């Protein structure tokens, strides 16, 4: 399955090659133009009919991860974070390092060696290391270099009521949606952008939008979902299984009311479940896209993902299907001259 292949690929921000290659292979026969720009974004064009708007569709290829900082005399690897990761989730996780995917485990001072006070304080990245089974610096250096990227080692698993568990659902699920959309036919001009470096500051999308210069844009994401017992309803952000979530406001963007209305109504009219993402912090590529040049109205349609930015995120395949279906119907419904601001 494509989503499985995408989540199992490694693509920490700045190192998106593996993901990029899968995507290019998957879409090249369905688009009129395809190129990789200087930052590494995949930019595709599907030509539309005259007088129809230019629509940018964006999903980011990169995921959060780690990077090798140094190797100590004992052959243990120190690392830093790439993108937003809760340091408290790192201990004992399995990782893969570099192009050759050298397996390792994140280790820390054992509990019986910790003082009483230490046990009450979560371990910081500085106190953690990766154990690759090497017994000296020299041996480790044969396999690992400073600057090597590190990803979580986590299987794609289908379970429960049509749910899946995987790493990097943020935003491989968006990539999977976009790949599916590019296989459809539309009257509008479709500028599909698979962006780089979203997790470290919406960087790829900025140049991709400058280049595409669309009339409006839709971003596809995996987004926060905290619909857990004990969390107050007004902090859920989204709910699993209640359909794709449409963004109203986050830390970087106030989303287009016109686009939101049309997308929401498209879902409702076609009996597809849809929900609003509760306005909250966080952000996505729309934050960079909407202020490019003279301004680009943006919407974001996301698949809710529990435990985002961890080795094990959970999403519903029903929400994923709903996202694809809603977006496709919306794009097919775009009329001549619509959304073109003069």
């Amino acid at each position: 399955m494509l989503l499985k292949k995408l989540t199992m690929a490694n693509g920490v921000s700045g190192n998106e090659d593996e993901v990029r290659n899968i995507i290019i292979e998957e879409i090249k026969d369905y688009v009129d133009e395809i190129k990789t720009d200087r930052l590494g974004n995949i930019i595709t064009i599907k030509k539309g009919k005259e007088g129809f708007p230019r629509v940018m569709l964006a999903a980011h290829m990169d995921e959060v991860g780690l990077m090798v900082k140094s190797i100590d005399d004992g052959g243990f690897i120190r690392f830093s974070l790439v993108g937003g990761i809760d340091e408290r989730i790192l201990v004992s996780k399995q990782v893969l390092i570099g192009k050759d995917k050298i397996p390792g485990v994140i280790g820390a001072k054992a509990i019986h060696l910790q003082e009483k006070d230490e046990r009450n304080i979560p371990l910081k990245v500085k106190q953690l290391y990766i154990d690759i089974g090497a017994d000296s610096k020299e041996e480790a250096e044969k396999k690992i270099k400073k600057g090597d990227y590190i990803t979580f080692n986590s299987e794609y698993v289908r379970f429960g009521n049509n749910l899946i568990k995987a790493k990097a659902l943020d935003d491989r699920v968006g990539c999977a949606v976009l790949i599916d959309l590019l296989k459809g036919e539309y009257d509008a001009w479709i500028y599909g952008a698979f962006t780089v470096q979203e997790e470290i500051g919406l960087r790829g999308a900025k140049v991709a939008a400058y280049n595409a210069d669309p009339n409006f844009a839709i971003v596809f994401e995996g987004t926060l979902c905290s619909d857990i017992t004990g969390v107050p309803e007004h902090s859920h952000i989204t709910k699993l299984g209640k359909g794709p979530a449409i963004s109203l406001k986050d830390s970087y963007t106030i989303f287009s009311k016109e686009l939101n209305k049309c997308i929401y109504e498209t879902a409702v009219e076609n009996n597809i479940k849809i929900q609003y993402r509760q306005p909250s912090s966080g952000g996505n590529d729309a934050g960079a896209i909407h202020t490019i040049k003279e301004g680009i109205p943006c919407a974001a349609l996301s698949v809710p993902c529990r435990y985002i930015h961890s080795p094990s995120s959970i999403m519903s395949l029903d929400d994923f299907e709903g996202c694809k279906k809603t977006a496709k119907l919306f794009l097919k419904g775009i009329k001549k001259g619509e959304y073109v601001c003069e």
Partner: protein
Amino acid sequence: MFVNRINIELLKKLLMTFGPSGSEEKIRKLIKEEIEEFVDEVKVDALGNLIAVRKGKGKKIMVASHMDEIGIMVTNIDDGGFLRFTNVGGVSPFTSLYQRVVFDDGTIGTIGMEKLEEIKDLKLDKMFIDIGLSSKKEVIKRINVGDVATFCSPFVYQKDCIISKTLDDRIGCYVAIEALKELKDSPNEIYFVFTVQEEVGLRGAKTAAYGVNPDLGIAIDVTMTGDTPKADTMEVSLGKGVAIKVKDRSIVVNPAVKDFMTEVAVENDIPFQYEILDAGGTDSGSIHLSRSGVPSGVISIPCRYVHSPSEMVYISDVTNSIKLLLKILEKEEINI
């Protein structure tokens, strides 16, 4: 020649018109109707900025005042009909408590809080809006998730000062509108831009500046003061004249622009003070970084209690700001 009095009726309309960041439709309509007959061209860009042009052959000057105001957005409605909310722009939980908010449809609610052990623990997610309806079913007939509201408080005109909500930055809009109306022939090409989404990150000014591509940018906005009991040290006081910005978090004003503004103020006997603001920024922060860079400055109107429902400005500072803007725009030779 100059308006030494203030057009209270217009100012009040500007202050009381709905327009939180991202929902500037009503305030844009009001300003558009007010200025249309005084400019050569008006347009609205994709983000909603209102851009009005007075054509000319000289320098392209962009004047930016932001139309948007701070407010709140509904995030959730519970079964009992209480609304949870998040901030739109810089909203303090402490200034919001027990204030009233008004939605676009006129619905008014009171902001309440959950029981807290200590008031210092007050955060927006412990607070809610009560519109006096007792079920979600009733509420969603009027208000939904994503709807925005602004604070409501009465407009006061008292001797030399104005007390109101949203002086940030409708007073800047007022200054620009009055200067625009007074402006006779100018050698310069002037873009009066009423921007959107300043309060959430100087966003509208960014796209407007790209579109206008000016030679000089001037933002008109309020600034804080240091003239209240035990205030942070700041050399700006109410009633001591227009403030010429030197620096804030978003911009270090181009010295040539600062000197030019000072020169115009001195030439015309306009009282002024320099402003160095430790916190906050304004539209010039976006404008000066547009394309390959735009020399930019700021005319600031001293204002106490910024981002509260009871902001305060002196009328003399407002009229002096209008004078300074007008004299800058009329300048024949601008060598920046």
